[in-house]
């Protein structure tokens, strides 16, 4: 038993020694593993936060009314409305033109008689907004304008209610007329702890970090395909299989080597995640740095590494039956696709809050890893640890089972 174990460890060392030497000399692969998350994650941060804010959008406000009127204690003019909306939009970087402009992406027209109708008790004032489709920033400007007009509408309504109250000689509070039902919203974390906008932002950033796991899946899945089937195509596999190195040591050694790529990828993913936080801070002076929690990065790092093991454990049985690198890579690509779908889905949902039987999707290790990062971002570290442990156990078990699947005859005889 002891000699079997010693021999197994010795075989594992030999395979690892070879794989790591080859790996460290494959500088292009190493660079890709390191640079992919470090470059793409900050770019994602810039794309999400910075780029939309600097997109040039022109808003024209055409005041055809040019009048003012009084309702109760409120005097209102179309010029004030135009300038109020214009100044507000200018604060958010929109180019605002007072007057008609054919090239503007958003046009707000205040028609003649607008203020008269606005201040009357009989008529409804209507403004006209024209927006060009195709840009989220245009939609955002239109949303701002609608919000501002609603605000003005509310102020005028309150003035009208006060005026009617005075005419009827009764005490009237505008809120009691306009919003007879008040809703007070309190936020809680999924585990029931009090939460505010800070927790909301942390959760959002946690979801983005979970998405970053998709980047570390790719190199290891590709590497294990190349490591096993590639040896056949490079004509080194047959000789290796004929040596006394045990088949299980061969698979385990290659898996451990591939997972080391994952370790490097995981570290890069954490660095990329840090830069993702930093990017908006640097480009927009947004202080998102205060939302960084070291524990979240520890969980992200562990999730990255385990995500690699999961990919290896699922791809190994397929790769061991693939006749060529192309076929093995296609299988790996399919796997990466599944992982990406799960990680992208984690942007929009909590897997662990689905109903039966859908909650069983949590048994897919990718889903539990994404959930671990999301939970950690909310400070639920115990739950995150449970998800990590589960994924680690499943992937290790699958890798050990895969060592039984290596069939030299199948690998040697299949046509590339």
């Amino acid at each position, binding site marked *: 038993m002891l000699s079997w174990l010693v021999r197994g460890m010795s075989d594992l060392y030999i395979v690892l020694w070879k794989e790591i030497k080859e790996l460290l000399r494959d500088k292009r692969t190493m660079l890709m593993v390191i640079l992919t998350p470090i470059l793409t994650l900050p770019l994602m941060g810039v794309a999400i936060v910075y780029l939309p804010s600097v997109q040039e959008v022109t808003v024209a406000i055409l005041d055809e009314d040019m009048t003012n009127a009084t309702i109760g204690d409120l005097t209102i003019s179309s010029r004030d409305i135009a300038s109020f909306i214009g100044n507000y939009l200018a604060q958010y970087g929109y180019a605002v033109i007072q007057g008609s402009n054919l090239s503007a992406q958003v046009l707000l027209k205040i028609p003649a008689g607008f203020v008269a109708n606005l201040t009357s008790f009989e008529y409804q004032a209507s403004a006209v907004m024209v927006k060009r489709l195709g840009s989220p920033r245009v939609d955002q400007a239109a949303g701002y304008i609608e919000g501002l007009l609603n605000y003005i509408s509310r102020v005028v309504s309150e003035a009208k209610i006060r005026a009617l109250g005075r005419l009827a000689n009764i005490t009237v509070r505008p809120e009691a007329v306009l919003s007879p039902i008040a809703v007070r919203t309190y936020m809680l974390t999924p585990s029931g702890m009090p939460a505010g906008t800070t927790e909301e932002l942390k959760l959002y950033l946690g979801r983005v970090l979970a998405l970053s796991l998709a980047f570390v899946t790719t190199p290891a899945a590709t590497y294990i395909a190349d490591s096993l089937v590639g040896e056949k195509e490079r004509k*080194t596999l047959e*000789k290796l299989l004929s040596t*006394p190195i045990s088949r299980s040591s061969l698979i385990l050694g290659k898996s451990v080597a591939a997972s080391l790529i994952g370790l490097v990828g995981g570290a890069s993913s954490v660095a990329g995640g840090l830069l993702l936080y930093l990017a908006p801070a640097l480009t927009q002076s947004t202080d998102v740095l205060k939302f960084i929690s070291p524990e979240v990065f520890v969980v992200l790092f562990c999730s990255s590494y385990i995500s690699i093991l999961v990919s290896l454990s699922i791809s190994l049985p397929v790769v061991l039956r693939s006749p060529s690198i192309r076929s093995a890579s296609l299988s790996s690509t399919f796997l990466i696709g599944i992982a990406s779908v799960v990680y992208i889905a984690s942007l929009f949902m909590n897997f662990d809050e689905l109903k039966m039987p859908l909650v069983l999707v949590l048994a897919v290790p990718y889903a539990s890893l994404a959930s671990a990062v999301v939970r950690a971002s909310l400070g639920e570290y115990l739950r995150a640890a449970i998800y990590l442990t589960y994924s680690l156990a499943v992937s290790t078990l699958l890798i050990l089972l895969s060592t039984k699947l290596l069939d030299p005859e199948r690998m040697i*005889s299949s046509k590339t």
Partner: protein
Amino acid sequence: MVSHLASDETVRASKLRKRFGKVEVLKGIDFVVRSGEIFGIVGPNGAGKTTLLRIVAGLLRPTSGDVEVLGYRIPRDVDKIRRYVSYLPEDSNLYGRLNGYENLKLFALAYLGAKDVEETIRLGITISGLSPEDLAKRAETYSKGMSRRVAVAASLMVRPRLAILDEPTAGLDVVSARYVRETIKKFSKELGTTIIMSSHNMFEVSKICDRVALIFSGRIVAVGKVGEILAKVGAEDLEEAFVKLVGERNE
């Protein structure tokens, strides 16, 4: 299990058949390889040489028949056999990102663990005949001749009881092929290693093999010392003997 090997035998195959799907590649092969000899398997492309060697190396399972290597049965005792048998596949490559020395070290470690590794590598360096400078270069920079010299060295340096060499000189220039042939002959005797080598080069086999088996279309058509086969068939060289034997079979 009772071994059917005689005391001077290393390999014995009887009624060996191998089928891949509908294609039968080996159609009932019987042969014996004696300890310490260089046994040549000669035949044209597609005759079944590589399949036969892969079975003896434990990489393929026979469809039927018996194969015994060093007293162990194939495929049952494959894990035991691999400790004493080294195999050099046809057209196999070295690990390109490792240098020549590291390639030798890999196979020394694979067969011997940490034991006697340095001494084994020194023997490998001697067998390869390459300079320390060449061995320090990455194998991806080697010519085919250099690669083959290191590969043959890696197969022999571990002092296997049986070395299986599939077309060890295929694709080599005259000088490299001559070096490999002489190396096999010299070190098999020095190390006491039994060799089975395949080739479709009749001249090569005549020069270095103690006994040969002529294989054609999955069957052995003649086996014995070269001189014996030539005398039996009435031919002047192995090529002529082969053509006569195959012609008879075809008729």
